[in-house]
């Protein structure tokens, strides 16, 4: 330990010698003037540059930028990945577009096949007098053909009237 202390003393003496490492005479004559000139020129201007603003507001973003700066390959890989993702998304949208809107052929097909959804619901049995009443909720009063293959609206019946027995 005493050796260490003694050596630290030598080390400290060695380090003190660095105080002799000074710039040449006259170096500081214009230093403050240069600083003030730069301030006046607006380099400070009360506004930080973008990088410093990012560093103060968002240390995470600053660290990310630092990582990208230190490893440009990572940045390239991330950018390439994002571009590929965008491309895949665009291609996927293109492929799904032709089938997204219902076509007349689709209506006809669904009309021929009963919908499994409606099959699970209470079947509508026309009463003897030809009028069907149902308490099932319906989404539309329009008797239009739909994808679910329900050509008849239980609350809307044609005005046809068939006397009993005929």
């Amino acid at each position: 330990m005493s050796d260490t202390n003694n050596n630290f003393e030598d080390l400290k003496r060695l380090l003190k010698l660095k105080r002799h490492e000074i710039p040449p005479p006259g170096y500081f004559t214009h230093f403050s003037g240069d600083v003030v000139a730069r301030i006046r020129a607006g380099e400070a201007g009360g506004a930080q540059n973008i990088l410093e603003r990012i560093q103060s507001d968002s240390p995470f973003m600053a660290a990310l930028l630092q990582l990208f700066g230190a490893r440009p390959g990572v940045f390239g890989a991330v950018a390439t990945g994002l571009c590929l993702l965008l491309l895949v998304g665009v291609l996927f949208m293109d492929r799904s577009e032709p089938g997204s809107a219902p076509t007349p052929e689709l209506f006809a097909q669904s009309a021929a096949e009963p919908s499994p959804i409606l099959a699970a619901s209470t079947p509508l049995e026309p009463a003897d007098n030809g009028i069907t009443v149902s308490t099932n909720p319906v989404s539309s009063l329009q008797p239009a053909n739909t994808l679910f293959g329900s050509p008849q609206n239980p609350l809307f019946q044609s005005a046809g009237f068939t006397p009993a027995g005929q």
Partner: protein
Amino acid sequence: MLTMPEPATAPDANVPAGMMEGDLVRRARRGDLTAYDELVKRYQERIYATIYHMTANHEDANDLAQESFIKAFSALKSFKGGSSFYTWLYRIAINKTINFLKQRRNKHHISLDDLDFNAEHDPDLVALISEKTPQRDINLSELQEKLNEALLRLSEPHRTVVVLHDVQGVSHEEIAEIVGCNIGTVRSRLFYARQQLQGFLADYIKA
């Protein structure tokens, strides 16, 4: 005929000699660049020296020192006066230097030019080389280079405390305030840094 050497920086007629630092800071916060110029003159050498000892490069130290003062001016409104202006300024310079060093971690460039190494007659150096140093034929330039290389091998936090304490003579308490840690951390970093330096400079410091 004797001639008095001109001072390195001429005093500003608008700033009374010995003006209190607090007054200068208050005026500078209001945008008075004359007051700020005086503040720069008061601390330029110390700030430059600290940055130079951290970077071992004259050009980098020059740029960083200027940028530190410029940043300090733009951040003056955030200076609440909790610490001394000098400590606050030091903190800005140290942080700026550390960020710079981290960005160019593998590009050490020690510049030995343009520096006036007046240590030849320093009694500490004379004693060190004549009595303690195994390699007695070492010249000053080589010693300076080895010392700077050894410092650059330290991590930034360890280099900071060694530069501030052992080179600049800043107290433990002030260092703790500057770097934002407690005094115990400063002492332990200093001890570890000195051990590291001792290992790096074993050829020049006799065990």
